């Protein structure tokens, strides 16, 4: 059984029969968010957000600071609940399974749904190799040959293999910012996720490094469903198939990127993307 199959088996075994039955109705979309609401203490960060994400697409989430973009994607892999005093309500259905179903282990969810953060965050004391292999080892994969293969595939998938193949034992922190971010993507890919969440993955990078990440994101959608939060509207326009515009915790408009950037339905969207506020 491949590592991917092994992980899938573990995840699906966590779901209740009801969740699976429910899932059969939801197979059209890779991710379905239904009436999602989230709070930090008494402050509501997400208000009744519903949207469906197709498989093997890139969805960009845009909106001014504090509009709930990051909170939304943190709800998609149950990271939001790790913040003290936070809570959420609603459904996030991935492959037909509600990840908030009480029978689902959030740790398993985080394996299926990779995340890349704004600032590259390689494990500081680990080598390049170990950064990529860490997740596998933590999940009990011991076969050295299998780990070697996955590390190589992941680094290749993240477009950094050629640059680091001869220095895998060197510290990950020794790489440039752009390389570190691709290393973090490789680390996420090693867990063979089906959905990759990216929270402003290029905001700390120079234009060349950003371009490489954008090209990589474009290539990765062949295998993954990607949801990317970005402040850079041109980046959203360049890389995404669909764009969601959020404002004050609510989803204002969601649709094909071409439509959103050429002819948005909502005046608020038009004003935001045209730089007339925010």
């Amino acid at each position, binding site marked *: 059984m491949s590592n991917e199959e092994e992980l899938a088996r573990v995840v699906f075994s966590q779901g209740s029969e009801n969740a699976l039955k429910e899932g059969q109705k939801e197979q059209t979309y890779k991710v379905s968010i239904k009436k999602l609401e989230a709070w930090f203490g008494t402050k509501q960060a997400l208000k009744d957000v519903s949207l469906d994400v197709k498989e093997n697409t890139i969805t960009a989430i845009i909106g001014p600071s504090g509009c709930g973009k990051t909170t939304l994607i943190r709800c998609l892999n149950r990271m939001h609940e790790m913040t003290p005093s936070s809570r959420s309500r609603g459904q996030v259905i991935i492959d037909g399974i509600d990840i908030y179903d009480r029978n689902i282990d959030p740790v398993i969810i985080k394996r299926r749904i990779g995340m890349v953060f704004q600032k590259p965050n390689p494990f500081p004391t680990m080598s390049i190799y170990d950064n990529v292999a860490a997740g596998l080892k933590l999940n009990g994969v011991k076969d050295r040959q299998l780990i070697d293969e996955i590390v190589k595939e992941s680094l290749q998938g993240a477009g950094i293999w050629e640059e680091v193949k001869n220095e895998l034992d060197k510290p990950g922190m020794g790489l440039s910012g752009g390389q570190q971010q691709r290393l973090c993507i490789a680390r996420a890919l090693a867990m063979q996720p089906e959905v990759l969440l990216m929270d402003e993955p290029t905001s700390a990078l120079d234009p060349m490094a950003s371009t490489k990440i954008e090209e990589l994101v474009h290539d990765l959608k062949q295998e993954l469903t990607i949801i990317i939060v970005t402040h850079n509207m041109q980046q959203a326009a360049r890389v995404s198939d669909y764009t969601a515009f959020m404002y004050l915790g609510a989803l204002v408009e969601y649709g094909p990127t071409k439509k959103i950037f050429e002819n948005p339905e909502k005046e608020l969207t038009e004003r935001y993307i045209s730089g*007339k506020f925010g």
Partner: protein
Amino acid sequence: MTRLLDLGIDRIRNIIMDMARLSEQSVFTSIDSYDKGTNVKKQIFEWSEKLRVLQDETADLAIELIARYQPVATDLRFIRSCMEIAYGFSRFGRYAYDIVEVLETIGHINDCDKTAVLGMASTVREMILLSVEALQLRDKNASAKLYEMDDTVDALYRKYLREVITPQNDQDKKDMNPRCYISALLILRYLERISDHACYISDSIHYIMTGRSSPRR
């Protein structure tokens, strides 16, 4: 605070309005010269050249604005449409020049029956004014009226063509002066093309305002 993009959009809008006035003046002057037999070729040539230069200026500025500011939504549609509208006005100038060139090439036509050309010219004048007004007012509904008038223009052109091809009797044939019907046919054709471009300009305005392209006829 004014967006930097707005400064560029204002510039492009001013160029387009200058083109609107100049192209209108070019077509009207060329029609008057047909009617009155005046020689305005040099003047129309200068205006037509100026329109071509302004069209290039519009395209250069549009590309610069896209490259610098990556405009989206209404801004992007406006800039894209300005390139098309500028092309339309530039064609007005070119057809105006073609009209006066016909007069010079064919020679004396004072004794020709000018009813067909002047009739169509009257409709086309109105169409030019309507398209420029639609541009000023951003009137997305001007298309319907303009296409209706374009149908009239097309019908007039086809009618005249049929009359020339199939004269009713021997007397008609005898009366047909090649200088008259060749000049009339050519000018009617140019007017018919101006009419099409007036419609395309209104299509562009509709696209700016709604984001929906009209199917080109």
